């Protein structure tokens, strides 16, 4: 199966990119559209322009393409000529060229850049890894202050999922799902503190998203034993002060109710496989996930969005 690259939320739609295909789920009507493309994106930029508008830029064959939607609801790739040569250039050179040499010699390194232009510095985060993988792999994480002469802030070796990187930044706070833990920290810091003791040993944090204030974190956890997923809201302020709470479970503010699923014909997850959460929307009200079913001995992948409500 093709690798899942990333998910973006654009107004009332979720756009899901896998290598060779783009899927759009309309979050009002539930309509879905799919478009194809050729080539392999070696650089992906997920940019959040506002809480309800994100965009994805894919570099394919050395050219950047911006992901959009046509009037008929079909996803589109539009050439983004000037982008690589304007404000992004310094990040790109440092993040991709410099660090890829530093981490993996001659191997192919993909760069996944998350930019938050509306946020205060640092606004760009870069994950460098060998390809897109839904299971955690070794990667290098950099946070970059684009306006500074010495732009590098955080520089960490991490073990992380590289498909739809589970990383979010809001209001000077960064959070990421790391292997079997979650790391959070001030964006200007060089370290992350782990949110230990929050969930069961057989639960894996798959996806994280911060609220606008950077005070609470929504986190999708997959139970490896039961293949069930739950989404928790966690108050991360105690950890950000450097004092992990004595009873971490008290920091759990609630669990999201999963409501409407789109598209309407989304298959019911097979209890043997469950779902793979891919991303939570910046407004924390949608979760996009992958569901796999077996038909005629073949695994079929579908994507769906589920509405989250918080009590």
């Amino acid at each position, binding site marked *: 199966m093709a690798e899942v690259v990333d998910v973006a939320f654009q107004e009332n739609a979720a756009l899901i990119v896998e290598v060779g295909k783009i899927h759009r789920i309309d979050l009002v009507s539930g309509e879905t559209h799919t478009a194809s493309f050729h080539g392999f994106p070696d650089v992906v930029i997920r940019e959040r322009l506002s809480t309800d508008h994100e965009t994805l830029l894919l570099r394919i064959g050395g050219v950047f393409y911006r992901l959009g939607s046509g009037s008929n609801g079909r996803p589109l790739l539009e050439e983004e000529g000037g982008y690589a040569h304007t404000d992004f250039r310094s990040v790109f050179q440092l993040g991709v060229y410099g660090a890829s040499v530093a981490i993996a010699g001659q191997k192919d390194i993909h760069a996944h850049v998350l930019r938050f232009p509306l946020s205060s510095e640092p606004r760009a985060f870069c994950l460098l890894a060998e390809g897109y993988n839904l299971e955690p792999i*070794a990667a290098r994480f950099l946070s970059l202050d684009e306006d500074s002469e010495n732009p*590098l802030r955080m520089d960490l070796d991490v*073990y992380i999922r590289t498909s739809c990187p589970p990383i979010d930044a809001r209001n000077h706070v960064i959070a990421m799902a790391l292997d079997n833990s979650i*790391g959070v920290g001030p964006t200007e*810091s*060089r*370290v992350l503190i*782990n949110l*230990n003791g929050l969930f069961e040993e057989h639960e894996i944090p798959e996806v994280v998203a911060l609220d606008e204030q950077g005070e609470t974190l929504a986190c999708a956890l997959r139970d490896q034993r039961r293949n069930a997923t739950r989404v928790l809201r966690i108050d991360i302020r105690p950890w950000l002060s*450097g004092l992990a709470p004595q009873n971490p479970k008290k920091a759990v503010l609630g669990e999201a109710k999963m409501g409407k699923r789109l598209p309407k014909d989304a298959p019911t997850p097979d209890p043997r496989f469950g779902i793979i959460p891919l991303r939570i929307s910046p407004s924390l009200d949608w979760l996009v996930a992958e569901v796999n079913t077996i038909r005629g001995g073949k695994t079929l992948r579908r994507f769906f969005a589920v509405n989250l409500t918080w009590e």
Partner: protein
Amino acid sequence: MSIFFPSHRMCVTSDEIERTKRLHILELPDESVRATYQIPAGIYIRVHRWGKDTEELLWLANSGMHGVSLLRFDFSGFLSLTNEAQIDFLDGSRIVPARNGLQIQWGGRLSDKSSDFVPLSDPRVGDLEGIIAIEGPSGLQAVLVPRVGETDFLVFHEPGKAPIFLSLAGVRMNRVEIARSEQGVLIAITNKSVAKLFLLSRQRPLCKIEGAPSSEICAAFPIPAGTGGVGRDRIGVISARFERLEGKGWSTILMSQVFETNGSLVSEAEIPESAHEYQLLQLNARVSPDRRWLVVWEPYYHRVFQIPSITNS
């Protein structure tokens, strides 16, 4: 896996899993981890400041895209790592980043002597495992550098002298302890079979203690004159003693021993609650600078033990 004591109440341990470096904070004597951080890759620098015998300052020499940089740890509040140009000492001595390593500038003077350069990696003497800097009343006294390779070395850098290479298989930063005595800086160094006590600037050890049969030395530490009302420098040794159980495997108990510099055993006691039903081999352990706590840190086994009070001041 490294163990540090930034204050008399705090222990910091560090390990690496799947290439990611983690740092755990413990509040002594509590064994539970208070916080775990993901931190950048790098070589630890342990600084023993003059007048602060129970506080170890911690730095990281980080080799990144722009060469080597020095990061200073601050454990008050959310862990912060501050980029600094150099580590300064009372007499103006400095440790500064240099190309692929660190340069010791004795008295603050620039030197082109290669002997004052500490390379991160050197095919002749192995990889740098850590750096221990010791400050005295008149400034930087010594820099001790464990290097790991085909042969393990502890390299002694002192002002105005050529570095001394002490070969000791298995020597690591965790296995080097210092204490100040009227005579000078006492340094205890150990591997699993032998413990040696040195006085800084003297090449011959004051004493050498061999491990007992069916045991491994986990830690050794200097006990300066005046401790417990005894007017002589001594050495403390923590050993894992193994016993074969009938019909079963080996069990482990940790022992605390104190020796005179002539090698005679002064006292011996079991460390309370240290009995373990399995054989615990090559434990990563350190004794706190106040000689009250023994911290054992293994990936799936970590404990804090109280050392019997005979070794305490």
